[in-house]
């Protein structure tokens, strides 16, 4: 499917393409807010907006893992992100047990878990050339299986460290603390992807595997590293989720998997790989969260929420697709 004939793109045209989608998403978010503000009381209050952004931050951070893998190309997709977070949260909750001292140990465990899971995904997909969709799905099954087995017959004990709670759940004034994390992560991501050779290599591999290989880049290694980074980040996300929710439970992360992909798509990143603008992805996450809030606020319940979610996603995909068609 990703054999769409490439055509020469001029730099100015690419910049225009790059920012056009971000502007579109931004306008859509504004429209949603305007619509919400005119029909619902309190929709545009500062608290409500920051609450939306706070909830969207978690999706956005998961979407970063997703974007890195997708940008590496080769139909890369990481369906195990949420499950990685769950297993980290479940395993570290009892270690932290509401105290700050074991936080370092918890972080180390999270890093180790993340590297292991990410490497497993990376080796299986890039070195054994197995389809990422199936591999990450099976890994997700295995992780959920471990969690189920660990949870079976006993309650998950333990609470997150107060530091984690402060970072993930608390507000500074009206400003959610998780937003500082998101801003920090965004800056680092933008610098690495746009200003260092690492970003160039990742996008190069995603855009054209063959060219990258002929230029002396170890394509397999790059994709393997992309999966490992995704594993580590999503494992750390497990700690933040635990901090936000206060307790660990066995389905805590799995709800973020599909929204993370949706945010990447709405953010205007091609699933074919080779590109990725994290700002767009963040806007995509905010758009999804605002839409969810609106649909819930209208009392449409689950049915309306999912139907609206699906229709909007389908419409946006169609809109994006229409300017990608070459025939």
């Amino acid at each position, binding site marked *: 499917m*990703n054999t769409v004939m490439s055509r020469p793109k001029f730099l100015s045209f690419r910049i225009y393409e790059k920012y056009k989608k971000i502007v579109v998403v931004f306008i859509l978010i504004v429209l949603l807010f305007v619509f919400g503000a005119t029909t619902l009381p309190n929709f545009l209050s500062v608290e409500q907006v920051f609450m939306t952004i706070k909830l969207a931050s978690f999706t956005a951070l998961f979407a970063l893992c997703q974007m890195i893998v997708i940008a590496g190309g080769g139909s890369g997709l990481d369906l195990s992100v949420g499950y990685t977070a769950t297993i980290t949260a479940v395993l570290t909750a009892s270690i932290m047990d509401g105290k700050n001292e074991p936080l370092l140990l918890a972080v180390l465990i999270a890093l180790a878990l993340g590297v292991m899971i990410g490497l497993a995904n990376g080796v299986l997909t890039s070195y054994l050339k197995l389809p990422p969709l199936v591999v990450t799905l099976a890994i997700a099954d295995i992780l959920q*299986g*471990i969690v189920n087995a660990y949870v079976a017959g006993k309650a998950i004990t333990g609470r997150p460290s107060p530091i984690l709670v402060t970072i993930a759940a608390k507000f500074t004034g009206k400003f959610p603390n998780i937003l500082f994390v998101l801003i920090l992560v965004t800056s680092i991501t933008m610098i690495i992807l746009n200003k260092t050779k690492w970003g160039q290599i990742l996008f190069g591999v995603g855009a054209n595997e063959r060219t990258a290989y002929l230029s002396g880049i170890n394509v397999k290694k790059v994709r393997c590293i992309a999966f490992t980074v995704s594993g580590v980040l999503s494992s750390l996300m497990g700690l933040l989720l635990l901090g936000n929710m206060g307790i660990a439970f066995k389905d805590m992360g799995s709800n973020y998997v599909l929204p993370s992909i949706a945010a990447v798509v709405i953010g205007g990143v091609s699933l074919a790989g080779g590109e990725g603008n994290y700002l767009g992805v963040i806007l995509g996450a905010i758009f999804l969260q605002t839409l969810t809030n609106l649909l819930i606020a209208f009392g449409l319940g689950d049915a309306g929420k*999912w139907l609206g979610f699906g229709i909007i996603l389908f419409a946006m*995909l169609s809109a994006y697709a229409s300017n990608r*068609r070459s025939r």
Partner: protein
Amino acid sequence: MNEVSKTGNVFYTFKGLLLKPEVSSFLIFIIMFVITATLQESFFTVKSIVRNINAFTPLILLAMGQAVVIVAGGLDLSSGAALSLFTCVLTTVMKRNDPVTGIYAILVTFAVAILVGMVNGVGIGYLRIPPVIVTFATSYMWLGIALFLRPTPGGESVDWFRAFYKIDAVAGAPAVLKTIGTFIPPALVLLIIGCLLWFIISKTRTGRYIYAVGSNIESAYVSGIDTARTQMLACIINSVFIFLAALFFVGQNQSGDARMGGPLTLKSIAAVVVGGISLTGGRGSVYFALLGALTLSFVNKIIFFANIPNAYQTLVSGIIIIVAIAGPAYVMFSKPKQ
């Protein structure tokens, strides 16, 4: 000297044979079949065969439909949600005391099935959105509509609908049909209908177009094949397979459930992969999806018989999928250098 190269050659061909996805998936199937047959003492009795067919049919039908889409270069993440939607439509149209409504329900649901296939097909074929993401979006649409129709599991079903599950259970059924039903379960009939459907399609031009589009969409397009239409047809065929599975489900449970099909989506994809069909499209036989689904179902049975606690089942099935798809790849990479 001559002998050495000869044995090397034999070794290479053996590995080459194992390398063929069809052969390795068939071997895995045989192994799972033998293990299940040894573990279950009553495996070869009519009763247990019928029960197994009943248990495996939905996944087999979904996997075969999925295989058609995958061979055409697509992927359907919405098949489970579509299955749930069809059961909800069936049970909404049917009224318990009015046998005619069963026929209406079948017609309406069939129309819905065609529509569902067309929407997926428009996304994959005409708009050329990546299949993973467009069917992900439509899966939410199906889920939403299904929840509108049936917020909680339930609904009505006419009595004769049980014939899709067990002819015995229908009060007014002729005795001849009942006797046949004990040996040939309706589920098997549905499976045969599915296989026949694909058999007929694979003999037509559309069948060949599906493979052509899946293996190289650009050259298929340049050769004058309407690629978008072909992919849409593949999606519609998939929908018909899901429709057959929905008939069986409602026959079995007499109710609709908006969330019932969800877990089956990923299983159906896994079954296709275990059946040796390439996810990149264009390669593999749709019938092998049946084999893949059977392998996965046997694995579940083995897990059951091995007395592995419920909690470990997801874990074990995940590991087995990895082993099943990584095994052939490992053989490929350990092959002697020429």
